[in-house]
């Protein structure tokens, strides 16, 4: 079983990202589970959401404490949240940032990768909404999930032009991570 923790701020679509990841993973033939860290959501406040992906049905209902993957939507969260907490030694932390991974001095053995998702979102979608872009980058960085499944899940949730633009941004982020 692989466990993913998504950090964001209220309003950035972290919970939606976790759900879309679960939908995409199931489309890939896996079992999946997504849930928020049950807060009282306020715009701008730090939030977390979780996704589990497994070959077998998932019974565990606890929060994720030792994630295989961490996705960080907003690098300013690093000042207030211990985003690397519990990350597995062979894990991966993906941060939305225009800095190189070396810029981040985190107390972890997990691999750190960065992607400038905000730029991709602004260039293609026209708004700084990065949750779907990061899922594309995550697919490329992790190899855990088929980017086509992510695009399909996103277009089903956001039909029409919005979904198409998001899909384009997802592909762009995926390609960038594959080239990295």
């Amino acid at each position: 079983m692989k466990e993913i923790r998504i950090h964001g701020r209220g309003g950035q679509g972290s919970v939606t990202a976790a759900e879309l990841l679960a939908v995409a993973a199931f489309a890939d033939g896996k079992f999946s589970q997504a849930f928020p860290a049950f807060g009282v959501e306020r715009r701008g406040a730090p939030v977390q959401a979780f996704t589990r992906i497994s070959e077998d049905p998932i019974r565990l209902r606890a929060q994720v404490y030792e994630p295989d993957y961490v996705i960080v939507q907003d690098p300013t969260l690093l000042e207030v949240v211990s985003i690397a907490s519990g990350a597995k030694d062979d894990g991966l932390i993906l941060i939305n940032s225009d800095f190189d991974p070396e810029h981040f001095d985190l107390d972890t053995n997990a691999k750190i990768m960065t992607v400038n998702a905000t730029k991709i979102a602004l260039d293609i979608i026209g708004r700084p909404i990065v949750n779907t872009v990061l899922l594309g980058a995550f697919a490329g960085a992790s190899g855990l999930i088929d980017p086509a499944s992510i695009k399909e899940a996103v277009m089903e949730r956001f039909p029409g032009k919005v979904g198409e633009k998001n899909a384009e941004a997802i592909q762009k982020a995926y390609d960038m991570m594959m080239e990295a």
Partner: protein
Amino acid sequence: MQRDFEKDKKNMVVVEGSYAVASAVKSCRPNVISAYPITPQTHIVEDLSQFMADGAIPNCEYINVESEFSALSALVGSSAAGARSYSATTSQGLELMHEVLFNVSGMRLPVVMTVVNRAVSAPINIWNDHQDSISQRDTGWIQLYAEDTQEISDMTAQAFKIAEDPEILLPVMTCMDGFILSHVYEPVVLLEDDIVAEYLPPFEPEFKLDPKNPKTFGAFADPNSYTEFRYLQQQAMDKALKKIEDAAAEFYDLFGRHYGGLIDTYETDDADIILMAMGSIVGTIKDAIDKLRAKGVKVGLLKVRSFRPFPVEAIRNVVKDAKVVVALDKNISIGLNEGALFTETKASLYNTKIDVPVIGFMIGHGGRDIPTGTIENIIDEAKKVIDSGITVESQFTDLKEELL
């Protein structure tokens, strides 16, 4: 009768738990849905409202009311008039319904209500525990608890079938853990309308409010007859013990999914240690059991699906050969320092020849997370009871001494 996930996979969709329940309600063809659609509520009634707007629930009235008290009061009228009636609530909303709960059960109205289990105030807390529904234990409602979204969805159809059986005619609460199940996205087979139609016949009560044939429900019963009304409610609960099993078995025949009837068991056959629990914690416990079984620990799980009627005989049969029984409760009777499952399990074993120590842990109050490690620690405590007897009968789990 185990679930075949691989077989179900092709029919599954990844949706929110609340949506799965709303979809199940739709398939059960309700005639009246009432809802007080502000906090505390869930997406269940929001999704049902959308179904209504889409015309997806024919022959149904959706009533927006001004309080939870009214939400259930409206269903007293509709159910008495012969309408299949449904609502959903949670936490303070359920507590506000308290008085009406007795009216529904006393009038023998087969209302079905999903209770999304959440803690009660004060202090304000929106997260999961079972204090809300356990506090309604004696209101005469059947109470069933589900472990995952598939079970709570499927349980909705079972609940109508049990409630509306002419021999039962009792209201049913189907209980699902707030947030943990109501807000989770996971694969689920949504109930299929045509199979539900086969499973659940139309609601055609023998007695109903009808201007052409006037009757009175819930009228005056003086000391001469009130006792007999209570006795008959208890008789119906006794009959429900079998009906709940039958409803689960019949559901399995048609849908191929089974979660136990009154109870379910996991690895209990040779178990020295048997954990008892209700709701979503059951999944985490199964994972902990697999881990410990691999290390040779003989531990099993007794899942209590029906809390009312309480499955005394079924519990006795499962625990009679165990060396220790551990009841986990997401509720507390303050002043007794025990959760209800613990108290009632002990009571079920008293005056019998079964001699097994029972200990209790109160756990997960106000949404405190329950990692697998917490379950493993509890099992360690249970082992000590086997070796040296009970030292602490009932206690809080993961208490933070530094906050006291």
